[in-house]
């Protein structure tokens, strides 16, 4: 396994403490020195520096002010003293003036004349006499001082506590404890809850929420007929137990896990093995794996106890969470790549699991939350002490590759590839050997040429070497997918501990060239009780296991709340906290804090069971209420923050697509093994192969199994607001844009789905009115009303003749026109608002 040369990050920190500065500062100033300052220094500072570096600056740049002696000595955010009396080497403003360092040249537009710079040197060497004795209160070199005790008082940093549900006045409305919290809010605002949803609406809502699919006509019929008080519970349990449930809820998690099968960024390298993580998430939701366990596995599955090889394999696959993020593979600077990778991991983990934007503290203390740069680098050390294995192979535009984790053949994992014949393996091998020889020859030739004539061995020769080597590497990558006997190897993206753990220095402004103090690996201070040990024990390996236990803990104030809010948001259409990925100071406060705590604590008491949490919410009257408009309520609470009605919700892209296929009876429920991305291989041709596979044949699998290549999201999904797969996203956009209308009217997929739907309706045994009813049942779970029947018959009498006429008349034309009209009618149902909205 390859290790990056991280140890080179450790450089002796150059810091000067405040005490040193104070000791060398002068109290009295000799008159000639004072004159020197007034004549040669102060005017220059005032003219060239104060605009950005004084108390009067509109905006102080870099936290540096130069209008007092105190602040001039202290310096700015960089942590380096501005001026150190007697030492130009430790006076950062002098270094900036000389323009020696390209990244720090001051004043920025024009270098000061040499004699002025010489005066500053002289002044610093004479001890930087400075009469500007004004004291600035709380001078801190531009840094915000974070008071952890104050910080811990933020609502979400305190542990959730269960409180008794409030008393309510309206009798008979509440069914569960949730309802008392909700009703109390509604009553307090002087509003009233609206009527319950009718049965067909309710089962459609439940079915889509739990399975991402419309209920079948039979399911609707049975539910409408079931008048027992337990009817809702029964139907909820039925869908919770269905295979389809895992596929639906896994997708919600994949949104916050910013799951994708390629690197994104500048060079979109394919991740052929990412799909294993997707399957792991589906399986976890299906089995209702306790959420705390689910999180632990994703952070440190490789370090957890396991029962057998299969169990171990699953847990390793879970760490794919840390490996599938977006990466800039073409970064020539490997240390920068390593730090960017860690940053991405901290960002994804903290937003998805904790609802915190910890990555903001990479370059400076968090601007809003009580999180320090020290906290960040304590976490960074944990991830730097782990090796992220994401695979990919060496190419012109990919300078950052890694190994993958190989699992045993008997670990019980599915294969994403078909077995090939041993002869094919041998053939690949011989092709590789030939290609490797060609590459070696190209290298030697270019080298020989370079010996003769330096100028000739230019870019052309380089490209030839690179081209031949890339070719060899690509074949090698394909070869590496198989055992000698042609069976595919089980390769996994994930994370393992490095042999030697590593503490990270704080990087000043996040710059790898400016390492500061080294901080021990540890946890986020504000989320730990005062005095609680933060650091990872030196024997503790990377510390990921400690991190996992700390996040997935009942003592962590955020974890359960964040997940309870995510589930609430998906079921109710808006979060109790409107910013599901940010529970920090800049996030929204909860509309119902006691309810959120109730849900969070109950969630933990119920063994972190997501299914129980879902069931609890769905059984509430708040969930089962109607979505009808009510003028009086609307006037007071137009955004429905109080949940006086169910929000009308747009289905997400996957549900719309799956429903389009389902109503036509052509949705293939068989889970896809692997992914088109895996089958495309890792070779040079992969993207082309993938393109052929994705665009060439109609995919009828469930949407969750479609290939998710960053920035090349399948059109059907992207047009309906599939989120940016590089970002954590707990609340998708729902736009209403013309491109969606164009898609549903004109795209072949939409037309194809309409044809399948029409063919199914045409086969239905009954008269035209019954067929119409059947189409309505399939699409909306209800029959058409009189108004709709009239509109449809109006359509039919106009549309069918138009088409028939355009087809040139005749018996054949009439039949074709009949089907065209039926298909256009079915397409209209799919295209209608009702199809894509839940009431």
């Amino acid at each position, binding site marked *: 396994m390859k290790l990056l040369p991280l140890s080179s990050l450790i450089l002796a920190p150059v810091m000067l403490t405040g005490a040193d500065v104070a000791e060398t500062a002068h109290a009295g100033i000799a008159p000639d020195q004072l004159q020197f300052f007034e004549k040669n220094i102060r005017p220059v500072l005032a003219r060239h520096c104060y605009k950005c570096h004084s108390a009067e600056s509109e905006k102080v740049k870099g936290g540096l002010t130069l209008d007092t002696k105190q602040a001039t000595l202290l310096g700015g955010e960089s942590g380096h003293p501005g001026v150190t009396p007697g030492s130009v080497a430790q006076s950062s403003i002098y270094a900036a003036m000389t323009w020696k360092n390209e990244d720090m040249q001051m004043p920025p*537009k024009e270098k000061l004349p040499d004699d002025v710079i010489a005066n500053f040197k002289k002044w610093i060497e004479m001890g930087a006499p400075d009469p500007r004795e004004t004291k600035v209160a709380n001078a801190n070199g531009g840094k915000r001082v974070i008071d952890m005790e104050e910080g811990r008082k933020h609502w979400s940093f305190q542990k959730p506590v269960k409180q008794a549900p409030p008393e309510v006045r309206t009798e008979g409305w509440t069914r569960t404890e949730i309802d008392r919290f909700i009703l109390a809010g509604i009553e307090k605002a002087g509003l009233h809850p609206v009527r319950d949803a009718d049965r067909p609406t309710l089962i459609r809502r439940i079915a889509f929420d739990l399975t991402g699919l419309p209920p079948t006509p039979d399911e609707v019929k049975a539910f409408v007929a079931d008048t027992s008080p337990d009817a809702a519970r029964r139907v909820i349990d039925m869908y919770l137990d269905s295979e389809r449930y895992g596929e639906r809820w896994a997708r919600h998690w994949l949104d916050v896990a910013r799951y994708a099968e390629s690197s994104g960024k500048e060079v979109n390298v394919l991740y052929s093995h990412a799909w294993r993580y997707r399957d792991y998430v589906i399986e976890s939701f299906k089995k209702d794996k306790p959420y705390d366990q689910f999180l632990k596995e994703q952070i440190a599955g490789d370090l957890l106890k396991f029962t057998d090889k299969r169990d171990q394999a699953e847990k390793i696959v879970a760490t794919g969470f840390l490996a599938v993020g977006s990466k800039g593979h073409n970064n020539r600077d490997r240390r920068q790549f390593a730090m960017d990778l860690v940053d991405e991991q901290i960002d994804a983990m903290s937003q998805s699991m904790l609802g915190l934007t910890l990555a903001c503290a990479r370059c400076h203390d968090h601007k809003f939350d009580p999180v320090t740069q020290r906290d960040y680098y304590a976490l960074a050390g944990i991830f730097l002490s782990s090796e992220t294995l994401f695979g990919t192979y060496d190419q012109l535009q990919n300078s950052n590759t890694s190994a993958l984790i190989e699992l045993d053949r008997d670990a019980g994992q599915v294969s994403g590839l078909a077995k090939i014949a041993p002869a094919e393996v041998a053939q690949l091998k011989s092709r590789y050997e030939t290609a490797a020889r060609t590459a070696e020859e190209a290298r030697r030739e270019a080298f020989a040429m370079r010996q003769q004539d330096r100028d000739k061995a230019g870019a052309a020769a380089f490209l030839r070497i690179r081209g031949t080597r890339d070719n060899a590497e690509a074949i090698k990558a394909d070869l590496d997918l198989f055992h000698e006997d042609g069976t595919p190897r089980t390769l996994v993206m994930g994370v393992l501990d490095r042999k030697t753990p590593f503490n990270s220095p704080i990087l000043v402004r996040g710059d790898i060239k400016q390492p500061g103090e080294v901080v021990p690996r540890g946890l986020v201070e504000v989320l730990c009780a005062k005095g609680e040990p933060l650091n990872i024990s030196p024997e503790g390996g990377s510390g990921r296991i400690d991190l996992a236990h700390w996040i997935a803990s009942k003592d962590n104030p955020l974890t359960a709340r964040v997940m309870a809010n995510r589930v609430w948001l998906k079921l109710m259409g808006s979060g109790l906290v409107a910013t599901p990925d940010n529970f920090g100071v800049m996030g929204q406060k909860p509309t119902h804090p006691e309810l959120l705590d109730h849900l969070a604590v109950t969630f933990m008491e119920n063994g972190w069971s997501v299914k129980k949490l879902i069931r609890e919410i769905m059984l509430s009257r708040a969930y089962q209420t109607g979505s009808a408009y009510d003028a009086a309520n609307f006037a007071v609470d137009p955004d429905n923050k109080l949940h006086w009605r169910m929000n009308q919700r747009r289905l997400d892209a996957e549900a719309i697509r799956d429903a389009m296929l389902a109503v036509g009876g052509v949705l293939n429920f068989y889970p896809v093994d692997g992914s088109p991305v895996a089958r495309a291989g890792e070779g040079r041709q992969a993207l082309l192969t993938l393109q052929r596979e994705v*665009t060439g044949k109609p995919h009828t699998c469930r949407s969750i199994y479609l290939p998710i290549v960053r920035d090349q999201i399948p059109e059907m999904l992207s047009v309906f607001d599939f989120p940016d797969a590089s970002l954590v996203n707990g609340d998708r956009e729902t736009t209403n844009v013309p491109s969606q209308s*164009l898609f549903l009217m004109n*795209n072949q997929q939409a*037309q194809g789905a309409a044809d399948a739907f029409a063919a199914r309706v045409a086969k239905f045994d009954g008269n035209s009115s019954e067929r119409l009813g059947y189409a309505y049942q399939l699409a909306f779970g209800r029959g058409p009303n009189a108004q709709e029947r009239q509109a449809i018959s109006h359509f039919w009498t106009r549309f069918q003749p138009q088409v028939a006429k355009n087809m040139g008349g005749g018996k054949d034309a009439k039949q074709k026109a009949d089907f065209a009209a039926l298909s*256009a009618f079915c397409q209209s*149902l799919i295209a209608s608002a009702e199809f894509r909205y839940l009431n």
Partner: protein
Amino acid sequence: MKMPSFSRREFLKTGSNGFGYLAFAALAQQQWLRAGAQAAGPLAAKAPHFTQRAKHVIFLCMQGAPSHVDTFDYKPKLIADAGKQAPSAAGRYGSAKLMPPQWKFTQQGRSGLWMSELWPELARHADKLCVLNSMTTDLPAHPQAFTQLHTGTTQFVRPSLGAWSLYGLGTLNENLPGFITINPPGNAARSYGSAFLPAIYQGTKIGGGGAFARRFGGGEQAGVANIRNSRHTTEEQRTQLDLVQALNKATMQQGGGVSAEVEGVIESYELAFRMQAEVPKVMDLSRETAATQALYGIGEQETDTFGRQCLMARKFVEAGVRFVEITHGSWDQHFNLKAALERNCHAVDKPVAGLLADLQSRGLLKDTLVIWGGEFGRTPHSQGDDGRDHNNKGFTMWMAGGGVKGGMNHGMTDDHGYKAVLDKMHIHDWHATVLALMGLDHERLTYRYAGRDFRLTDVHGTVAREIMM
């Protein structure tokens, strides 16, 4: 604040099924009362922060990094020192030899702007050009610099310049996309992406590469996705759409008569239907006169493609599109500079000159900022015997129209053209300046995401006021 006019909802009155216009008007009014001007939709034109000089932008993006010392950055010292060792300013290229510009420079226009002979047509517009000679960007690597050119960052996923512009100003014609990118390179979705901004602000792609490049609508020419219906006549489609809208109306009534969501669906269908008519019309160049086509070099083999794209850009701008970008690739002359750079310049010279002339004659140039440039420049020394390497420390872009002064150079590189030494314009500064020309304050154009306000320029950016009229 003015009450919104409901003209966009006119169809509701006239739609063949006779929708209840009053119900919609009541709803819309309610929404307006609730959400203020936002009820007009996220694309509605918005007031700028301050004086707006450019209403539209056409960005001619030369992907691959054109050589500045062979085009717009005249360096007599580079000619004088030809063949000498590169000076220390060249950094890691210390042992390379300086290569003089391979084309003759002359002064053009009344302003006497220095341009190389690669631009015979554009030279006639020298007095319109504001040449930015002191551009810098962070990294000398194509993908990163290309991303930074468009989003300001090489590291994070951020919205593109066009998306920010559209977010800031809305569009002037809601029958068309507000941000159109023609021929974007593959794997450069960031260059027109909206990242965390609402998806509606992302660029609509016309043509362009990418492994999944799609053929749209079945026509020969690349266009807006799904803009053509291959099955039905317009009349048939209208009949079908009337059914869809009747069903939507029924849905609305069942939900209590008020639903912003359903109303949104109804509107988006009508807009889409109008776009179907409008987009192909704007993209149809055949109605332009032969003289106009010739002006852009349409019909001449070398200039036909880019000429068509430039003409299309003019038509989009004329129709109210806020931001149009056209990418022209392969300016990466590590070798074969002499032939390849000449070919590239020839391919764009006439079309660009034609665009400026055409915009001018239609009175559009004063409101339209035309920008030319790539992600960085090239080294003054040679690579091999006929090429130049990447140079991010000093390079050239130019702007014209849209309230910038013409016939001037802004900033300067050193004697050989390695580094910007005067009035440096980093990409952040350039972004700040482009936004300022559009009337947007780069420090006030913010969007709240993940708990904080984001800007195109992050914490950087200085507006170059001196180049504005």
